[in-house]
């Protein structure tokens, strides 16, 4: 496990940002999903010791967050959400500086700095002062300073925010590449669900500081499906009527297909019976692939309903 949380709590005065969260992030890439203000950034900052814990405990790579802060920080990389820069330095200077702060020798840090800056696409701008960088370039330099010492665990807080579509695409590709190598675990905090869908194996969904769900992306999409893509030939109107009578919801999906959402607790037998009763020939019955967004919206909706 790369991160283990036990009743992990962070509060700012009376406001509880992370509320007694218990979870475990396995090695690999984990998406930390939540709406704005859900507590994603606070959770990461708490893990790094940037904000004090109000309660509970946590371990990162087997080390206690409260007592082994320095050792943890040497093993992790952090790309903050804010527009953070170290003023006065050039791109290469800033990455070298970050490397030296992590314990690399000056020579190693500068050599690796050049390499990392090429990886993030700042090769040509590496001798420019970081203050003159555009917002997309600032995202890249933050990524470079987090990667310079080749950490075992990388925390990325909204890594694509402020980037143009092409830059965003490239950033996600880089995250995917790093993730696919399997040597570095990634925790990606974002509210952009498609980024998590594309780059992560697992998702941790949080809402108002509480853990809602922790699951692999595939299972997550499956667990909330209940929707099937259906194709029939023959008496389609009668088939639809029978399904509606059985409590199904039907959405047309192109000319020949329809998405059928089954009522709670029902299984695909309903569809088969409707087809038999209406005399339609069932040509296709497969689970619809749901986007993470559909799942997320449904989960948050469920959470509101439970309140």
């Amino acid at each position, binding site marked *: 496990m790369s991160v283990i949380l036990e009743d992990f709590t962070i509060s700012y005065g009376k406001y509880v940002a992370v509320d007694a969260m218990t979870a475990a992030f396995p090695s690999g890439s984990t998406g930390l999903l939540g709406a704005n203000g859900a507590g994603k950034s606070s959770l990461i900052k708490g893990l790094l010791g940037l*904000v004090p814990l109000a309660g509970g405990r946590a371990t990162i790579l087997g080390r206690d967050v409260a007592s082994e802060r320095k050792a943890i920080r040497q093993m992790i990389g952090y790309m903050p959400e804010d527009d953070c820069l170290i003023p*006065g330095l050039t791109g290469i200077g800033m990455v070298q500086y*970050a490397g030296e702060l*992590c314990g690399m020798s000056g020579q190693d840090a500068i050599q690796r700095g050049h390499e990392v800056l090429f*990886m993030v696409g700042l090769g040509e701008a590496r001798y420019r002062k970081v203050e003159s960088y555009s917002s997309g370039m600032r995202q890249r330099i933050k990524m470079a300073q987090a990667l310079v010492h080749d950490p075992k665990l990388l925390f990325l807080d909204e890594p694509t925010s402020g980037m143009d579509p092409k830059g965003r695409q490239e950033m996600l*590709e*880089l995250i995917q590449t790093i993730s696919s190598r399997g040597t*570095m675990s990634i925790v990606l905090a974002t509210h952009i669900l498609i980024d998590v869908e594309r780059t992560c194996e697992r998702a941790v969904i949080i809402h108002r500081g509480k853990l809602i769900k922790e699951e692999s992306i595939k299972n997550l999409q499956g667990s909330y499906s209940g929707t099937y893509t259906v194709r029939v030939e023959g008496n389609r109107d009668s088939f639809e009527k029978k399904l509606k009578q059985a409590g199904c919801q039907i959405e047309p999906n192109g000319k020949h297909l329809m998405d059928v959402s089954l009522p709670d607790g029902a299984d695909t037998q309903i569809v088969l019976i409707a087809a038999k009763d209406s005399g339609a020939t069932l040509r296709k019955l497969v689970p619809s692939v749901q986007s993470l967004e559909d799942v997320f919206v449904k989960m948050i909706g469920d959470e509101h309903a439970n309140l």
Partner: protein
Amino acid sequence: MPIYEETYRPWHGHTVTHPKTGWVIAKTGFRLLWKRSMILFLVMANLNFVVRAVQIYLVSRTGSLSKALPNAGMFDINAGFFLSFIKGQIFWFIIIMIFAGAGLIANDRKFKALSIYFSKPVNFWDYILGKFSVMAGYGILVTLIPGWLLFLTAVMLGKDSSVFSQFWWVPLSMLAAVIILISTWGTVVLALSAISRSTRTAAILSFGVFLFPELIRAILSRIPSIGLFSLQAVTRQIMAAVFGQRLPYDFSVWLGAILIICITVLALFVIRWRVRPTEVVG
């Protein structure tokens, strides 16, 4: 501009287990400030050294001028001579402390760099020690180094070993005086830098602390112990005591020392309060 022209490659090098992050911060900060304007300040600040060195040379060539000139005791090479050199450096010392220190924390706060620092194996004391060392480094270049060189010049140009045998303790006094100067003004300027996100504001505040209390002290000089109001006066008083010279003001050295300790502790509290990796609003 593609985001990667090379695919991600892991790094298999070695990192030290306990990196000396304070030293890394100090080294980088010192290098960043080492530019033309700073070098100009350093040259101007050390003109006094050149004048004093010439004075030592002339005295060594002509013998003690005090015998030939009225009120020429000031030309004698003794502890007072070295104290007056250090006191003469205070103006430039403070200018350089403000020039070097005003932006040290203010800029980091302005560009939200603290999140980056504190996500590395850097704690509050590493960070402050690093920043403080930048100021101390430049402070030493205009006080202790020229002071010791001046002493060395006096010893070397002396006709016999009397300068060294009589005043061997002067380099230690200089060290103590410079430690007092740097620890006081260094923490005050850093605290003012931590209060603001603007280098200019921090510099103006620092000049205010340097000038106004001294101005008030000069205007109200008839009031006993008014010197305690001015940080400059307090440091001069303690330095005089350290050099074993006549005290320039009528307040107790110990009271001054306690005041300086309180100011330094207060400045550290301000820095601790302002230097936080995450700005918490509300």
